[in-house]
């Protein structure tokens, strides 16, 4: 479904965040992206829906190159790709329902969305998404009154409104405690398994990668260092990805394999 070829991103300040990155993603994959801070994980995810403009290379979505596409076409692609964020990125002062409905903006006409008169079917769709995330009673609450885990579930509900084929998740659990992290990732796993939604998710903890992903993409300094199943990340690869000083982390990972 997604084919990335020779993707390069150089920021205006000269930082090469992605350097000739190529890979393909098939439907129904759960792809984890790992790498040290600054290795280019966020940049890669953001290039795919062009929140960040790629400098060069190709990103093909079902055979259509997203790079260089005009904004009208891009919006049609974007609405098929949901995105969730480390900081949840909800509109804090708006209600949960409004936040969820905003996931539908790529589909409905401005005549409906600007005055905010959402038709019944869209409200029902939002109610279903909230129900699915276990947030039935929160629709009317202001987003910033929710806990972190609840806010991230609202973020997923917003993405679900897009009826996405792919969900990009940029460190979705980095701001949450381990219990909530598993709950969020289980939701993504469920969507991947039951709805066939492809997941591309950057993660910091290898135990989470082993537990949820069926493929890993490791980045270092904007290049792909490893692309394969999680079990293939052996000791040498680990050191290559995370550096020599990461020995201790590796130890915990060995001691606590899968949960």
């Amino acid at each position, binding site marked *: 479904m997604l084919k990335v070829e020779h993707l390069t991103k150089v920021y205006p300040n000269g930082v090469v965040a992605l350097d000739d990155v190529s890979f393909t993603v098939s439907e129904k994959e759960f792809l984890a992206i790992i790498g040290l801070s600054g290795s280019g994980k966020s940049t890669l995810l953001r290039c795919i*829906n062009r*929140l960040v403009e790629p400098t060069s290379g190709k990103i093909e979505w079902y055979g259509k190159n997203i790079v260089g596409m005009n904004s009208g076409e891009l*919006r*049609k*692609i*974007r*609405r098929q*790709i*949901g*995105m969730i*964020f480390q*900081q*949840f*990125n*909800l*509109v*804090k*002062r*708006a209600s949960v329902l*409004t936040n969820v409905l*905003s*996931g*539908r*903006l*790529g*589909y409905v006409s*401005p005549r409906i*969305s*600007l005055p905010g008169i959402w038709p019944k079917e869209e409200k029902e769709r939002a109610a279903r998404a909230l129900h699915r995330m276990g947030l039935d009673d929160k629709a009317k609450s202001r987003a910033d009154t929710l806990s972190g885990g609840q806010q991230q579930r609202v*973020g997923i509900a*917003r*993405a679900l*409104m*897009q009826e996405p084929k792919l969900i*990009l998740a940029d460190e979705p659990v980095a701001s949450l405690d381990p219990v909530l992290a598993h709950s969020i990732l289980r939701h993504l796993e469920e969507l991947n398994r039951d709805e066939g939604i492809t997941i591309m998710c950057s993660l910091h903890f290898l135990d989470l990668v082993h537990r949820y992903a069926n493929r890993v993409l490791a980045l270092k300094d904007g290049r792909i260092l490893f692309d394969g199943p999680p079990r293939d990340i052996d000791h040498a690869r680990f050191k290559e990805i995370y550096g020599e000083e990461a020995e201790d982390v590796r130890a915990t990972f060995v001691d606590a394999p899968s949960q």
Partner: protein
Amino acid sequence: MPPSPRPPAPRLIRLTLVTLAIVTVYVVSLRETEIDLPALATGFPNGITLVRDFLTPDVAVRETANSSVGLDFPVPCGSAPEEEVPESGPRIIPSDPCGEVGATIIVEGVGLGAGADVSLWWILQGISDQRLRAARVTTDSEGYFQTTVEIRPIVATKEGKASKLTAEITSEVGVLRPSPALLETVDAAILTVFMALIATSMAAIFAVPLSFLAAANITRHGGFGSAIYYVTRAYLNITRTFEPLVLATIFGLWVGFGAFAGVLALAVFTVGSLGKLYSEAVESIDPGPVEAVRATGAGPVETIFYAVIPQVIPQFTSFSVYHWDINVRISTIIGFVGGGGIGFLLNQRLRTFSYHKAGTAILAIVLVVSLLDFFSAAVRKRAT
């Protein structure tokens, strides 16, 4: 030791020149501003009187009733019949029943009502309708007064008719009512508050869209966007520097002096000022939700409606109320140049030397300004 960058001689010359220039500027400014410290002392009584007038603003009146009592007072004695002082009721009692020219008598008043204004007149009986003021007093809480009156030659008996010493009494009756000056002031103060409100609202309608165009995070993408961004910013910066007073004069000549000219002047100035404040609020929003909404495939206008506006509403509200507060102050000043409202009234009253009424206007300005200040502070506190 680092080498000195300049030889010492030119530096000395430069220093001398700069010192000279500074001294010249100060000498000229002191002369031109005509600083006259003695005037502070010599004018002090005037200042005190004015402040006292201001501090006793004309705010309330009572109904008044007028009455008079009097009696014939022959000058010199024997030139005409003397008149008996009545035993009771409101009356005046001279110390002597008659008198000689040049003498001084004491006049008492009894039963005239408490706190009444009393004017003592000589009604010159011989010459028709002529009267001479003898004294002006206020009665005490028992309705009593005492004053001295000089017997001037003009009050002498003519053609056998004595002049009549008369007290004209003006006493307040009934309840305290707002004075006409107060009512007029309240009207003008309300007009000022509404002028500021209308001007601020009109300006806000234009400032909101302009502020989005002048926000770097919304508009400054690509060449066309940057052009719009810079043009809008320039427009806001220019209108912001317009002096409302000058604008009011221009609009006064254009549409006629009055409230409308004042509102236009305020509105033009406020568009720039509010637009700038709003655009800074837009620029300081959390970019996360904007990114998230853009990622759903929303267009630019939808993104503004769903991700930007909810974030800036509290600040927009507090800036608007704050500017309403500022505009009440400015419109007071604009009133002075004919912009209508309370400032206009104050100017009018000062020019006609009605200082008590001017005091009423000043009181109203102080009240309105502090009320709005309080209100806008409260709104801002709640909004954040």
